[in-house]
């Protein structure tokens, strides 16, 4: 009897304490965080350098040519790719198009509202587009290409074979996708990939999740074979023909860190609450497939100043994280291909 009463009193006290903690968090959110961080812990139980559980599922959707759902903790981003036929632009007859977009529908967080895309969405779209197509094409594909006019007669493919292939992509930095691969008939027909990432739930660090989803979907992409109708010259899909998969020579992933309380603390993989209070952030995108990791971008859009040494530390942490993401993608692709067989 007596012990039960004590237990009941304890639970009442515990409830009181929890309520107090909740109030403290509301009134002094920063101080609340500082108390945790001084113990090298975060309110969600993670250490400062710990990323949340990450998962990737390939092709969850039937309506897109390829899709991938990336989840980092509660944050989930769904990327779908639709491929359409288009006519290459005059400046780049040997290239296809890729249009990359990241959207945050009003559903995904309490702060995003209806209306034109937010600053965050625009910046993220720009960043992702740059990574997907590389530096050279970034300016030439900013606008959506024209849809092929059905009346344009298409010449036979053999006539194009002898044409000298000047490859401007060699001169510049490559992206994830080699735009040359998207060309079907030089100057006549090419693929236009619409890569759309939709944030379903924004619980912080949507950058990492968006890139993971985009990379996953690109790896899952299978382009159907295209045949030209001899009479009308109209392109059509040939379901029995050889479908192609993109080569994708490199696969970069992102790791984001949040600078907290000046630059006193560096938190890996910030949650939405942490993002709201952070004093700066660094996103590191790198490819670790070769022995020597290649940095694709180190993006620090302002915020608290950071020394080069601190930045170096972030990069080495990021490289470790990206290795696990790379393994995750490989495992998912392997399980996908065994499922297919």
């Amino acid at each position, binding site marked *: 009897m007596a012990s039960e009463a004590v237990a009941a009193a304890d639970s009442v006290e515990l409830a009181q304490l929890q309520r107090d903690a909740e109030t403290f968090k509301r009134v002094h959110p920063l101080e609340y965080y500082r108390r945790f961080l001084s113990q090298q812990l975060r309110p969600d139980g993670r250490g400062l350098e710990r990323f949340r559980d990450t998962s990737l599922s390939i092709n969850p959707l039937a309506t897109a040519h390829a899709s991938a759902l990336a989840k980092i903790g509660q944050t989930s981003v769904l990327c779908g790719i639709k491929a359409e036929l288009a006519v290459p632009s005059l400046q780049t007859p040997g290239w296809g198009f890729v249009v990359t977009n990241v959207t945050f529908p009003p559903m995904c967080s309490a702060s995003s509202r209806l209306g034109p895309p937010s600053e965050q969405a625009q910046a993220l*779209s720009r960043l992702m587009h740059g990574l997907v197509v590389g*530096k050279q094409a970034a300016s030439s594909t*900013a606008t959506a290409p024209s849809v092929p006019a059905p009346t344009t007669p298409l010449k036979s493919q053999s006539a194009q074979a002898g044409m000298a292939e000047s490859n401007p992509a060699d001169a510049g930095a490559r992206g994830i996708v080699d735009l040359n691969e998207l060309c079907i008939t030089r100057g006549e027909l090419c693929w236009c990939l619409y890569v759309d990432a939709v944030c379903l739930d924004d619980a912080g660090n949507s950058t990492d999740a968006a890139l993971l989803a985009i990379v996953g979907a690109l790896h899952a992409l299978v382009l159907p074979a295209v045949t030209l109708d001899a009479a009308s010259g109209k392109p059509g899909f040939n379901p029995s023909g050889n479908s192609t998969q993109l080569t994708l020579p490199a696969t970069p992933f992102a790791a984001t860190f949040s600078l907290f309380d000046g630059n006193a603390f560096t938190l890996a993989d910030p949650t939405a609450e942490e993002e709201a209070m952070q004093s700066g952030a660094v996103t590191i995108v790198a*490819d670790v497939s070769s022995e020597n990791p290649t940095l*694709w971008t180190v993006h620090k*859009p*302002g915020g608290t100043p950071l020394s080069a040494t601190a930045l170096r530390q972030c*990069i080495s942490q990021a490289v470790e994280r990206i290795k696990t993401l790379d393994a995750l993608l490989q495992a998912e692709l392997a399980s996908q291909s065994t499922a297919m067989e």
Partner: protein
Amino acid sequence: MVTRADGRMPNQLRELSIEHAVLSRADGSSRFSQRDTSALTAVYGPAEVKSSKELLDKATVQTVFRPKTGLAGVDDHVCEAILRQALEPVIQRTANPRTSITVIVQVMHDDGALLACALNSASMALIDAGVPMSAVLAAVTCAWLPAADGSSERRLLLDPTLEEQTAATSIATFAFESTNQEIVFSSTEGQLTVDEYFYTIEMAQKAAANVLAFMRLSLERKFSKSV
């Protein structure tokens, strides 16, 4: 050493020029040029702020990035966001709570390294407006170019022109604050190894120190004149 198309050394910046207080109606203004690349910035504030944007404990920083011609596009909005986020940590925002500080950057001409020029111009205009700041920003752009004939190594060029920028395999822009020379802003395009990245930072840091020295000189001259 291979010189560049315009006769500069690889680690040489273009001639800088700063004009202070060029606009009569703005609280502060400055025009910053790196030879042909030039940006004009006007600063208004601390001034009244729209109640929806008012912050109780600090000033609201608003930025506008105007392209040379036409309407602002996605890229310009992204530049706007970058400017705001890069300037916020150096402005002492708590000194003027519940006010707005508006920074308007007008591109005069883009011949490469535009963002760096815009950042430099904005930080000079903020000084001209007398906005309390904890440090001054100095920004520098660097470009890695593919190997020239006869050498196998990629070349690092400071302050690239537009032509060099299009030929580059990677471009990096950095902004440093003046007190500890720490990195406020970093953005890179194209692939770099970790060592290349830090080498770029090192070179940019040295160049930024020169930019900063020039800014100081220019300010000293301006104030000695007015006395």
